[in-house]
């Protein structure tokens, strides 16, 4: 072939810009089609219900407490300033934060230990062990804790034997035990993924550059596991904040948390607008907070 300035005539070429554009459009359309089932499902059963909740937060109540979609008002939203609400929100935030921190401290060490096992098969077995609790229902497992923590439960007996603790069921510690147990795997898995990805020659370089083992961990390993810390914290914090089953079964009535409080609004209190406003408000705040948290992490990693 020789090099000339002449363009080949259209019969000689297989592709031109118009055909290339059309091919790209077909490609992207096919990609969208694959996503359609998920879109339909999420819109029908996730977005729509959330919008219904939002609409109900402006509804009014009949004398018997039945929600009525007329006389639109913001009573539900103004009640958010009640002292009771701030007490429960504060308590929930403290519980969720503490649980996240506990999960992080315990989960990090465990994830680090798994990620640093030399043999792939050892790591796989340890990860499967982390996932084993998911093989049975969360409710069933929480009831199991109830038995362990009750007067004649093994844990209570052990506490009485050693004189260190008594019956913990229906107290705040019982809620913590339940939450830690329930959400620890959600911390371990993303942490493991992040730690396993770390290039260990970076830690070696740190040691070579006069960092002690502890310093190398603080300056290199920890910052590089940040994506896992962020993902794990979000996965633990958000469900802890809205936890319902655990505080309900293990905490009893004295330790009302947000989840239980909202459920009460839709049940015994018969105040749907207030329950809806509370749900919507938490959702909006958490969404904003999560976005900020992710952004801060994305910048520094």
């Amino acid at each position, binding site marked *: 072939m020789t090099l000339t300035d002449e363009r080949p005539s259209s019969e000689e070429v297989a592709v031109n810009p118009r055909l290339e554009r059309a091919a790209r459009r077909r490609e992207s359309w096919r990609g969208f089609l694959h996503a359609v089932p998920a879109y339909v499902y999420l819109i029908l059963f996730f977005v729509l219900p959330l919008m219904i909740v939002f609409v109900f937060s402006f509804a009014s109540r009949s004398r018997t407490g039945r929600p009525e979609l007329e006389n639109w008002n913001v009573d539900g939203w103004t009640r958010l300033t009640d002292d009771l609400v701030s007490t429960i929100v504060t308590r929930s935030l403290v519980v969720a934060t503490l649980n996240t921190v506990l999960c992080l401290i315990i989960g990090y060490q465990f994830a680090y230990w798994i990620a640093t096992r030399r043999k792939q098969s050892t790591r796989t077995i340890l990860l499967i062990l982390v996932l084993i609790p998911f093989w049975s229902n969360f409710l069933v497992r929480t009831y199991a804790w109830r038995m362990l923590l009750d007067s004649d439960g093994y844990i209570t007996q052990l506490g009485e034997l050693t004189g260190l603790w008594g019956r913990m069921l229906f107290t705040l510690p019982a809620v913590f035990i339940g939450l830690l147990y329930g959400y620890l795997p959600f911390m371990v898995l993303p942490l493991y993924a992040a730690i396993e990805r770390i290039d260990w020659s*970076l830690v*070696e370089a*740190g*040691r*070579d*550059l*006069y960092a002690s083992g502890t*310093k190398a961990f603080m300056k*290199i390993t920890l910052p590089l596991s940040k994506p896992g810390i962020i993902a794990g914290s979000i996965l633990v914090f958000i469900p802890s904040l809205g936890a319902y089953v655990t505080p309900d079964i293990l905490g009893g009535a004295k330790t009302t948390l947000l989840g239980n409080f909202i459920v009460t609004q839709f049940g015994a209190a018969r105040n749907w607008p207030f329950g809806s406003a509370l749900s919507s408000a938490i959702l909006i705040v958490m969404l904003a907070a999560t976005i900020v948290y992710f952004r801060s992490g994305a910048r520094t*990693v």
Partner: protein
Amino acid sequence: MSIDGAPAVGLHGVTKKFGEDVVAVDDMELEIRDGEFFSLLGPSGCGKTTTLRMIAGLEYPTDGSIRIFGEEMGLRPPNKRPVNTVFQSYALFPHMNVEQNVGFGLRMQGVDRSTERQRVNEAIDLVRLSGLNTRRPGALSGGQQQRVALARALVNRPKVLLLDEPLGALDLKLRQTMQLELKDIQADVGITFIYVTHDQEEALTMSDRIGVMSEGKLVQVGVSEDIYESPSNLFVASFVGDMSFLPAEVVEPGSVRLAGGELVRAKTNSSPGTSVTLALRPEKLHLFADASQVPPDRNTLNGTVARRTFYGESLFYEVDVGASGSFDVRVENLPVMRRWEVGDKVVVDFHPDSTTALAE
């Protein structure tokens, strides 16, 4: 504290085993002088990187003694050794910028802020990266990352700098530039460099001395010329540079007989009757049309051109000398040089001093 006159690094009986039966380094004896550019050369898996890691303290020897300026290192952790490493993968901290990467070692040693700034800037200048202080490693080219890794190690003024195939990931042109630069920097700072490489050309051009390793053992230590001109065994001969081999038998000192019966004068001290391998460098052989053109006191062999390969600056002719075997002849690509065709009858000539007879 260091002992005056002690070698920069002394390895005595150093052995490293991984598990029970993998011997990575086998009973190594080596002394590296102060201020020397020393290369450990060998194929992958020969134990050269393991040796370097043991000096750095990233691995501990199974047996033996490692001394740095006379001081026994024993099981001392890497952060307490007066050496720094330039890693093969560079191992730059991705979450820190150039300045922070370079200053890491000084910060860990608790050097005060203003001294740190000054020395970091000096080091960045030394590797010619000024202006990139606040860049993250991810935003640097391979060559720039390499310089950061070098600056990060040099800024600490180690007594010995360890370099693990530092130029391996760079393309040819950049590698050649960096070779010269590294050599200049070493002359500048006067620090002992221990350079691990599998690239024999790199080792030959840069080093004051080379240690050739094979299967965990140090097989020859010497200056570049010695390694190239007088390889101590077949492994070194074949690993360093191009080499053709012909089986032969010693007839008397200074004379060997090839498999085809030709008598050839060669450097050998082996006793008559010993089987040896005659090793020939392609660039030390010449081709002629007939024996009358060959200068006196040279060896001559009659052969046929079996293959011609064009390399740009030179051509390689594979010459078949019948029962004695075949070997390569390198001919400069000069206008005056005759181009031979496959099948041409040729006379190969070589000086007795440019042959090496290696005992089996």
